Each structure stands twice: as structure tokens, then as C-alpha cells.
């Protein structure tokens, strides 16, 4: 599993690989937590690539409701259909002798109004209707409302949804579901219980070096070592937002662009804004750069 993920450019720790393996085997959704930029979303993308299945992504936000997540009726089309129906109805019912016979015929015509052609599938529905299975990524679930979370429960535990007008839609092949969370709020126990839990911590130096080496191919090993050591020492400081993996990778890319061969204090100072995202953090780190560079 680790190798497989490595093949598609994701360096996974053992715990990540185990959790993923369990998710596939137990057919349970997997809830990925961790601070921003440790590769939660990337894990889902890489898994989709590894399993060669399509990825359906749903970004959660406050106010997201089932009409945007699950399905919607194509209202405009329905409206046009009624207009046509109105015209045709007269012709179809013209030869009916009385009201009862007309009603009889009307019942026989079949209820097309709420049927598949008028259904506009949204991400969740799309994922359930994929015949060969797919990877469904529900991003930042903690940003959505509690009501939506409750609504997800049916989808996550039974891989089915009920559409009142049509009945229950059941997935032929259950999708592999990833939920990611930044811990903006605590998720409900019911949701947590239905998921496997995976917390991705900030990586250790060796792992991070491998990640940088994979993500930024042109970088020299010596520079990677220094860069990672510097970022690791930054994380020990008391910062508002300590740099995560994506920042390290961005920084490595920036250094490649600048043709840097070594970490000079001036260079670090100029590019500090790539890894630190708060003015206070930058101000706090700047005076210590030389010291941090020497410490290792």
C-alpha cells in the first residue's frame, strides 16, 4: 500500500496506509483530520489515482444543503414539460365521454413528472450511481451545518439515499469515501462512529525529506536536508500557524525557481513569506533566522 501510494506521488506513513487498507476492506468511510496542508485532500486524490477510479469531490461550506449535495429536480425542464402536457392533454382526453373516463385515462399515462430524466444528480448521487465504484471526497465536512452532517449518516452507513418521489437509490458498488476535517468544530459522535479515524500529524524529518524529494524532483539532497531541518525547527517555536508539508513543498519549489544552492540567511529572510502566513510569525522568526539555521 505504501509503495502503491508512493508510485502515484504520495509518501504515506504506515498508519495512513493501514487506515486506508482497513477502509477498503471494511467498506467504511474514512475521516481524515489534521491541520491545514498536511495532505488530507491529497491522500484522496492519490488513492483515486492508485485505484484508477474517478474522483468525485464535494466541497462543504456553511449552508450546503441536500439540493446541492445530493440531487435537484430540473425545475425549468419540468415546467416546460407541464406546458407541453397542457397542450397535449386536451387532444388526448378529447374523446373521453365523461369526467370519470378522462381521469381513468390520466392515471394510465404514467407519472413522468418526478422521474429520472428530470433528476439532476449532485456529487453524492453521482458517486452512488457509479457502477464501478469511485472515490468520493467530502472535503472539510466540519464547515457544513450539523443538519447536513445528520443527513450524511444514511449515505455513509448504508451507501444509499432515499428520494421521496422515486424511492431508495442504493449504490451497486460502494464508493470509497474520504471525509476531511480541519477541526473548525467538533463533529457529531454519530458521524465519527460510522467512520474510521485517521489523524495525519506533521511528519518527521526523514519522512518530510522524502516527500519533498518526490514532490519537487529537481532538488538536491543536501538542500532538502537543510530546508527540512529549518522547517522542523520552526515548528518547535510558538507560532500562530506553524508551516505544514504543503508550505515546505512550496518553499522548495520557490528555492528551485531562485536557483538556490544553499540556505543563505538573506535568502531565507526574503522567502519567509512562503512558509509563514502571519505577519506576527514572520516578525517573530526573522531575528532568529541565523540561529535556527545553525541549530541542527
Amino acid at each position, binding site marked *: 500500500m505504501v509503495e502503491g501510494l508512493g508510485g502515484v506521488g504520495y509518501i504515506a506513513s504506515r498508519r495512513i496506509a493501514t487506515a486506508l487498507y482497513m477502509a477498503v476492506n471494511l467498506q467504511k468511510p474514512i475521516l481524515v483530520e489534521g491541520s491545514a496542508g498536511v495532505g488530507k485532500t491529497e491522500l484522496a486524490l492519490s488513492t483515486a489515482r492508485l485505484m484508477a477510479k474517478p474522483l468525485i469531490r464535494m466541497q462543504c461550506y456553511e449552508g450546503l444543503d441536500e439540493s446541492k449535495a445530493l440531487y435537484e429536480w430540473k425545475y425549468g425542464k419540468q415546467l416546460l414539460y407541464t406546458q407541453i402536457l397542457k397542450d397535449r392533454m386536451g387532444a388526448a382526453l378529447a374523446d373521453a365521454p365523461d369526467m370519470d373516463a378522462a381521469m381513468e385515462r390520466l392515471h394510465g399515462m404514467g407519472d413522468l413528472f418526478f422521474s429520472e430524466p428530470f433528476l439532476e444528480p449532485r456529487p453524492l448521487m453521482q458517486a452512488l450511481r457509479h457502477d464501478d465504484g469511485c472515490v468520493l471526497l467530502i472535503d472539510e465536512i466540519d464547515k457544513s451545518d450539523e443538519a447536513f452532517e445528520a443527513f450524511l449518516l444514511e449515505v455513509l452507513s448504508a451507501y444509499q439515499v432515499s428520494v421521496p418521489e422515486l424511492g431508495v437509490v442504493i449504490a451497486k458498488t460502494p464508493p470509497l469515501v474520504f471525509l476531511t476535517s480541519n477541526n473548525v468544530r467538533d463533529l457529531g*459522535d454519530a458521524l465519527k*462512529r460510522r467512520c474510521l*479515524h485517521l489523524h495525519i500529524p506533521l511528519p518527521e524529518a526523514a519522512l518530510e525529506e522524502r516527500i519533498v524529494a518526490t514532490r519537487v524532483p529537481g532538488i538536491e539532497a543536501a538542500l532538502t536536508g537543510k530546508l527540512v531541518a529549518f522547517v522542523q525547527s520552526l515548528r518547535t517555536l510558538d507560532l500562530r500557524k506553524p508551516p505544514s508539508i504543503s508550505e515546505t513543498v512550496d518553499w522548495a519549489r520557490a528555492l528551485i525557481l531562485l536557483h538556490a544552492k544553499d540556505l543563505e540567511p538573506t535568502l531565507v529572510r526574503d522567502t519567509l513569506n512562503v512558509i509563514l502566513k502571519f505577519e506576527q510569525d514572520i516578525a517573530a522568526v526573522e531575528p532568529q533566522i541565523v540561529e535556527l539555521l545553525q541549530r541542527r
Partner: protein
Amino acid sequence: MQHTLEEFLRALRAADVRVSPAEAIDAARTVENVGYADRELFKDALCAVLAKSRDEVGRFDNTFETFFSRAAFDLEPPPPESEGDQNPSEAAGVAESELAQMLLRGDAASVAQAMEAAAERAGVAEIRLSTQRSRMTRRLLDEMGLAEIERIIANARKMPEGQGLAERLDRGRRALLDQAKAYVERQHELYAAGSGKALREEMLAKKALNADGGIDPVDLVMMQALVKRMAKRLADRYSRRRHTANRGHLDVRKTLRKSMAHGGVPFEIAWKVKKVDKPSIVAICDVSKSVAAAAQFLLTFLYSLNEVVDRLDAFAFSGRLIPVNAILDDNGVEGAILKVLQTIGFQQTDYGRALQDFAENHLDRVDRHTTVIFLGDGRSNFADPRLDLMHLIQQRARAVIWLNPEPESYWGQGDSVMHRYERFTHVAKSCNTLGQLERIIEDVLRTYVPH
């Protein structure tokens, strides 16, 4: 193995990792899937299934390590066989006791197994309190057959040629005692330590905060953690602006207006949307001498509230009133409390003066969306309570709530003007435990009805 797994789940529950029956089933399926061969794999897989938050992962790791670690027994290897030894051991009845044989053979693995089995019979895992430890140890040893060993030792001592044997058995016995003690200790740590903490937290939430001597310094840290958790819980529920889903009720007026563009055909449908206000709170906290015991706690809560409610104006007073938002924002919780108390705390109370300060400088903070919370005992040292200002605040605010750390029977006694202030509040409640406080604050936040 099924039994071991169940025991492990029980240990997890004791460590405050919530494991539901459904998760137990998952765990069993997991074990089927990954097997026991690879310890790390086993642990990671179980962790993914059972631990559901970052804290729980930490606790899971600890419990796993404690549960599945077995301290190796430290037994001396048997001495080389000599003919003389055979006699006394038979005479002393070693053959009757399996345990004695194990000890003499130095067979650590068997002894460990025997101890596990005995522990199960003795019900060591049922341990709940730290005071049960010595009794449990005794029971464990009894189950293992310590009495027999002692008898054998006594027998051997009587015989002149049995001294060596007695010595060796005695050493084995002492090692056994140590092991049993350690074993029970570990079981206690697994099953009981966590529940003890939970019990204490529960007690603390019910404890009166203005009790004699105030909050125990030992409890203070736990108290702060409790308050923080409580504030976070409240914030999770209430601090987000909520749109109730725009489904359900059709907004006929809007829909008709929009349909004009399509020749009266309602192509665009408008739904009624409700919005719920975020709470806006003005909190005024008394930190004078008379509430000294509760002040720290009130401030802790103020601090937590400040962290989670966006629109909170916090004030503190004893003689004069000052805004403390800046202090709360810039300092850690202990620092902030200390600083507030240093700046203004523990002086003579003067409610009239404080109200006047508030009315002169900060009255514009109070409008019809604001809830004003007073935290104080309403003891004004016989100074003018300035009821007119209180009335003014009541008229401007959406609600005025007074939380008094004293029980209701004390109100109006001595220099307390609580009953006179009470007329100008919507809710006045006695509140001197964490539990009460949480309930009241929840009520405050919930009354933000949609408009």
C-alpha cells in the same frame, strides 16, 4: 482471543475512549482482517477503527502499550541437579503444587500464564478504586496457590537438608509477590485511573465555587480545563451564524415578483430564509473582595467566553469599572486573570460607581440586540446602588441577566441590594457551580430566536 479483545475494549472505555458495540464489531472484523502476527499493523488498524479524535488516539496508544505489555518474570534459573535435592523436595510436597514446580524450574512464561488465569478467576479486572489494590493482590496470590508454597517452605525448613530448597522457594515467592503487585497496579491503571478522573470532574462541576477557601489549587487546573471545554461546547453550538435551510416555506411574494420576467410562469422559486443572530454579549464582572473566592472562576469563564463569542464586551470592576477585552485577548488564561485582579481586583465594592462608569463610557455598547450579563453578589457596601442606571440599561438591552454566586436566601441580607437590582433584570439566578453556569449560559444563547 475474543475475550482478550473485549477486555481491551473495556480498558479503552475506562480510559475515556468511547467504544460503542458497533465499533466493537468493527474491531472484531478488523482483527479477522489483519491478524495478530504484526504488532504494529494490529495496533494501527485497531486505532483507525476505535479512536475517533486526536486525544483519543493518544489515549489509545497509552492503553494499548499498557495492556499488551507483559513484564517478563525475573526468576533465577534452576541450579544444576544434584542427587541430594530430590529427597527434600519430594518430602516437602513440591510435586503437589504446580506453582512450586514452575518457580523451581524458573519457568517464567508458565508463571506469567498462571498469573493471567488466576487474575481472571480473582476478577482483578473489576478493580475500581485505588484502595482495592492490596486486597486484589492478596486474592490474586491466593488463586495462584500461594498458601501451598508457604506450606512447602515451612515443611522444607523443618528438614535439615531442605534449607536450600526453602531459600530458593522463598526468593521465588518474593519475586512472585512483586510481580503480582505490579500486575494489579497495571490493571488499576488500565481500568480505574480514568474513571477516577471522571468522578473528580463530576464532583468539581457540582462543587460550590464560593465554598470556604475557594477552589483548591490542585483542582484549579482541572477546573480551567473544564471551563474551557464547556465554553468550546457552547461555542460549537451557538457561535456560527445559522441559515435555516432555504426549503420548506415558499416565499410567494418574491416568487411572483420574479415570475414577472417570464410572463407569469414561475421559473425562479424563492424560499423563505430565516437568519439567526449571533449572540452579542456585554459581561460585567465583579472582582471585589466579597466575591474573591468566585472571582477567579468567573474570570476564567469570561476568558473562555471571550475566546469563543465574537461580539463580547467584557468589563470588570470593584471600585471603578474598566474594559478588560484587551487584557483577555493579549494574555494566556492565568496571565489574564492575574492581570485583571492586579489592576482592579480585591478593592471595596461600589456598584453605583461601577454602573456610573459604565453608563458614562460604554452605554453605546448596549442596544436592542445585546444581552447584558452581570456576574456579582450585589453587595454594594451601603453605597448608592444607582438603580436609575440599572433601569436605563434594562430599557436599552434585549435582556439583563444577573448571576449571583450567593444562594438566594442570602440576597437582601446585610449590605446586599440584590433584591432591588433583581427588579431590573429579566433573569436573576444563583449560580455557584460550573454545572449551573453552563445551563444558564446555554439558555442565554438559545434565546436568540430568529427574527
